[in-house]
């Protein structure tokens, strides 16, 4: 097993009855890589992410996440990853500082670390004046930046971001991506899904899922070259339009 890999998945499969939601996907993600996990609604992305986070047991196949086995060490996986989604996961009726303390505690940080990392986080986001305000009062873009910072407060090996920038204004979306670059530079592997396909071009490598299968997997530049398309949006439309599944 290679030490510089954050995710190793081999023939990972999930069936619900006769329905094959995820069909034998095989891929590797390097440590510190920004990996774009693309696919149409219903392609099986969410099911795959749930398996990779240790929340759903695969029907068959193997996966090693941050060095931990997906079957026998799922609790260790949960401790060593971060997760945020478009569905805002912080407590709206707690202050910024309270949310940091709460999640720091959940992730098992010591009080002392929560204090120092929390202050640093608040400072970096320039939220000093709002630290004791309710999170629910913040604009969406600020909430998402805060949720991301909290999702990596325990320095996880991997952070999973499920459509983190949906509905966020274009300037804040770019600030959010700067935060992603910084996290990756710190060695955190970033696993991200998005429907904004120009964001796919910010990833080191991307995969495209269609009907439960991983159809292709490369750098955005190579994919655009291979399919002879000017943008990732065109590549995506070209591949996903042949999907047989309709839907969610």
């Amino acid at each position, binding site marked *: 097993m290679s030490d510089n890999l954050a995710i190793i998945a081999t023939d990972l499969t999930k069936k619900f009855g006769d329905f094959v939601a995820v069909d034998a996907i095989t891929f590797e993600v390097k440590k510190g890589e920004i990996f774009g996990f693309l*696919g*149409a*609604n*219903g392609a099986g992305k969410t099911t795959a992410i749930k398996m990779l986070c240790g929340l759903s047991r695969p029907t068959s196949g193997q996966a090693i996440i941050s060095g931990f086995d997906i079957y026998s060490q799922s609790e260790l996986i949960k401790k060593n990853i971060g997760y945020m989604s*478009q569905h805002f996961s912080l407590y709206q009726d707690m202050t910024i500082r309270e949310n940091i303390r709460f999640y720091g505690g959940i992730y098992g940080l010591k009080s002392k670390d929560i204090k120092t990392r929390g202050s640093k986080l608040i400072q970096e986001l320039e939220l000093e004046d*709002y630290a004791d305000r309710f999170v629910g009062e*913040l*604009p*969406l*873009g*600020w909430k998402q930046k805060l949720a991301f910072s909290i999702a990596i407060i325990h320095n996880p090996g991997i952070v999973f971001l499920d*459509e983190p920038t*949906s*509905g*966020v*204004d*274009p*300037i*804040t979306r*770019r600030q959010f*991506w700067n935060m992603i*670059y910084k996290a990756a530079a710190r060695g955190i592997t970033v696993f991200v899904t998005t*429907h*904004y*396909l*120009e964001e796919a*071009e*910010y990833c080191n490598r991307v995969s495209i899922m269609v009907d439960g299968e991983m159809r292709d997997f490369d750098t*955005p*530049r190579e994919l655009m070259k291979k399919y002879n398309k000017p*943008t*990732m*949006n065109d590549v*995506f*439309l070209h591949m*996903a*339009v042949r*999907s047989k599944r*309709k*839907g*969610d």
Partner: protein
Amino acid sequence: MVRFEHISKSYEGNPAVNDINFRVEKGELFGLIGPDGAGKSTLFRILTTVLLPDVGHAYFKDRDVVDDYRYVRRNVGYMPGKFSLYQDLSVKENLKFFATIFNTTIAENYDLIKDIYEQLEPFESRRAGALSGGMKQKLALSCALIHKPEVLVLDEPTFGVDAVSRREFWDMLKSLKAKGVTILVSTPYMDEAALCDRVALIQDGNILKINTPDGIIDQFGKQLYKVVTQHIYQALQALEKISDEWHAYSFGQEIHIYSSKSLNIADLKGQLVSMGIDDVQIEIGKPLIEDCFMDLMVSEKTEDYV
């Protein structure tokens, strides 16, 4: 067909929209483009008579939507952002229910929804709650159209929807427009602006600009340069060091720069190469709606947060 005049609305003291004025002509496909929290849903809810404005008036065919709310409800179709059909009724039952409420039948207005509903027909007896996202959306659209409204109001119909389904949805809107339906649609995806006849760019409850998509691009008024390199992040940091007089930001696989002053491309290229960005290419480019939106956001920006 639709007019907003000096509309303002606050929620518990937080302003959602401020003094909004615009009109939508008959037969137009009009887009309200902006991020979450911009005030798009508030405007649509006022127009569709489910919310009262604090100040101002909205009109549908010159009738005040507050005074004549029954008339508005009979003649406007509304598809809210959140799926609002009956989850435990079947596809067919939902459609029949909405037809009955509006005193009509499925058969009477089937022409208008035929292309959309045909795709649902194999699942007619399935409960709406058990449909996939794309199918729910088609059913919601069918239900919003079953009383043959003159104006169709769609609140973020493509939010969280993948690029393929988004394209299909816009094709459906185009064919509805061809049938004479006036359409107001909101979206956070800037690239969808190009598919509208006219758009209003909206942010923090204020309209930044109203025009045709091409008109907005023509009004950008500054030269935009595209920087292409494999080292986007390093190039962005380098550009920040060289000058703070321009706006430089990533845009897909490129960096876009614009400045009120004109740039010497050869000089800038030389500077970037000397800073280690040795593969850099710079050329003059055409702005997109998203460039215009960001420029307007920066120049309008007063207070982020109250």
